[in-house]
């Protein structure tokens, strides 16, 4: 026997999850644009419904095109499996709703995407789930915030927009000491730049809308489970370890061990909340995933050039990027993100809000919109857009000021981007 060898990342990005279509021989992933799947007979139907056979019943629960994306992302992340959702926010909600009930508590990084902050700070609170926000790099704050009813620790691999690097090994250790999992939003890093499960995270999700899709064409999310967290040993997750009346009194952990979380998330979360991904969306995101290993190095390479340019520009007060020596997480980034700290970063323009306005309106190549991770370069002013519902205090905690501008560096010629920024910066200072 030859020695064991796993396929490389690039190969998995192109092949994992899909064999050529057995019906037609189609090499590309077919788009199974169907709501439902014909049963062979009544016995087959009953077996599928009762989870005695593998297969598809209804596209809200699973779909062959969507399943290719799910398996491919699970392969790239090193998880046991994945569930694709209608958006990244749907993935976050699915994770939380699968793990806990009213009366539970979450400890979360204070440096989150505004939408995630809203969900935790306001919306889930209405349903009896409270969140304590902490400064992500203050490990003692994570520890101090844990309560007996805490069920989850949560942060972004790279905080938004301050680019706080989450110390996944350290925060995971705190989580595991408290017998709860660590969930990370890995959108900014993608599995190409960092594989959080190898660092100790238990669950992760992506807004697949961003770098995974990579072309700004489809909204989607993917929730992935490492399968390493022992729900039974924790004793804190009744949703996974006790009989569930909504599915023949199934004890998900007893039924499936490593797959318990995903089983409940699919069989309850997708069934009841219904935030599934459409097959066409999965196909579009798969097109992006197939070139992730080519695009991410290029995104990072261009980002480094732009960062260097901005750091030396007189109209720029500060550039916030973990690869710069003055970033508070510089050493951590070198350790946890050796392939690069992503392609989204912030800087502070001199002249405050008026300068920011003039800068954004003078750009020609950068598009002013609320997204990141597109093949095209993007710009936004967080204080008035993505994070506008946050209080001044919360904004400060997240490292956002009136002059903060966030860039997402695309795949254009880096020199063209630098020229565009230079022109707009000069315009901003007039």
């Amino acid at each position, binding site marked *: *026997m030859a*020695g*064991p*060898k*796993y*396929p490389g990342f690039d*190969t*998995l990005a192109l*092949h*994992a*999850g*899909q*064999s050529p279509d057995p019906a037609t021989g189609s090499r590309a992933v077919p788009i199974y644009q169907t709501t439902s799947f014909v049963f062979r007979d009544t016995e087959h139907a009953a*077996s599928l419904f*009762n*989870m*005695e*056979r*593998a*297969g*598809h019943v209804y596209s809200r629960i*699973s*779909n*062959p095109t*969507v*399943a*290719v994306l*799910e*398996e491919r992302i*699970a*392969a790239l992340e*090193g*998880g*046991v*499996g*994945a*569930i*694709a959702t209608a958006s990244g926010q749907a993935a976050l909600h699915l994770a939380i709703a699968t793990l806990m009930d009213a009366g539970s508590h979450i400890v979360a990084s204070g440096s989150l995407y505004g939408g995630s902050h809203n969900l935790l700070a306001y919306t889930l609170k209405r349903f009896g789930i409270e969140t304590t926000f902490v400064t992500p790099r203050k490990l003692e704050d994570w520890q101090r915030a844990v309560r007996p009813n805490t069920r989850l620790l949560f942060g972004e691999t790279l905080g938004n927009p301050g680019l706080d690097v989450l110390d996944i090994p350290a925060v995971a250790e705190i989580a595991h000491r408290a017998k709860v999992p660590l969930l990370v939003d890995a959108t900014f890093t993608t599995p190409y730049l960092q594989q959080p499960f190898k660092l100790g995270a238990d669950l992760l999700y992506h807004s697949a809308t961003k770098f995974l899709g990579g072309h700004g064409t489809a909204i989607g999310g993917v929730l992935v489970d*490492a*399968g*390493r967290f*022992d729900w*039974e040993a924790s004793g804190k997750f009744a949703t996974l370890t006790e*009989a569930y009346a909504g599915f*023949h*009194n*199934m*004890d998900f952990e*007893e*039924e*499936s*061990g*490593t*797959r318990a979380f*995903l089983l409940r998330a*699919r069989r309850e979360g997708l069934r009841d909340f219904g935030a599934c991904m459409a097959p066409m969306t999965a196909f579009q995101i798969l097109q992006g995933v197939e070139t992730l290993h080519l695009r991410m190095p290029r995104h990072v390479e261009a980002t480094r050039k732009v960062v260097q340019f901005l750091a030396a520009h007189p109209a720029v007060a500060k550039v916030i990027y973990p690869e710069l020596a003055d970033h508070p997480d510089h050493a951590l980034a070198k350790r946890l993100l050796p392939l690069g700290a992503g392609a989204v970063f912030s800087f502070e323009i001199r002249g405050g809000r008026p300068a920011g306005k003039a800068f954004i309106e003078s750009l020609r190549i950068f598009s002013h919109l609320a997204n990141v991770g597109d093949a095209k370069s993007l710009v936004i002013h967080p204080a008035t857009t993505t994070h506008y519902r946050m209080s001044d205090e919360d904004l400060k905690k997240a490292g956002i000021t009136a002059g903060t501008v966030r860039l997402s560096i695309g795949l254009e010629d880096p020199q063209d981007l630098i020229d565009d920024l230079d022109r707009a910066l000069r315009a901003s200072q007039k």
Partner: protein
Amino acid sequence: MKLQVDGRAVFAYTANHPLDASRRTVVFIHGAGLDHSWFGLQSRYFGYHGWNVLALDLPGHGRSEGPPLTTVPAMADWLVRVLDAAKAAKAALVGHSLGTLVAVDCAARHAVRVERIALIATAYPMKVSDAFLDAAKRNEYTAFDMHTIWGHAPRVPLGGNPNPGMWMYGDTQARLERLAPGVLYSDLKAANDYVFAGSVKCPAFFILGKRDMMTPPRAAQTLQEQIPGAQTVLIDTAGHSLMAEAPDAVLDALVQFLARNSDPGS
């Protein structure tokens, strides 16, 4: 359900049904380093189709207390004590890999307790490579890599999982990472050292994967020749992890062999 055997807790998945003395019993015995849920779909089916199901965690695996048993005959004897604890006079045994040797040994030495045996991915002798044994003995992750990669058909990492959204390699790795140190080595050594000296008289059925790298179909030939009348189903696309790689084909074969008592074909 939890049973007490030798003063230790034994976990048996019953598909959420209480044991019923009027029903036939089928016992599922997992392979090296794994647990009862490796038979997830198949064991659930039988539990909901009129059978008593005991999908076991061997000692030191899953939810059963350790330590692991170190020889196949010890596992077979333990299995009989499990049947005693469950008040099952006789059972059909379904084994996978190491579990097939337990089923064979039990059928040979405790014939009155065994109705029939189904052997999924088997070989005799079940020789484990020195590299695999050595890595497992040292508790090196390489042993998990070998288990994962050789434990699936070559197409698995490049193809789709019949179970939507699941990544078979990742699932195997996650299961192995939950093992206590030394358990995988103990299992592999038990399989490697096993010597079959008896004879099996009950009906036997082989379910083999054509792409199996750990126990290729030709390695089952010696055992097939020693069990007169044994039937075989060869699943074209599957490797060693047949229950995950070809769940419906395995279930259909088991249904034919166990539930209908008819000739499963060859």
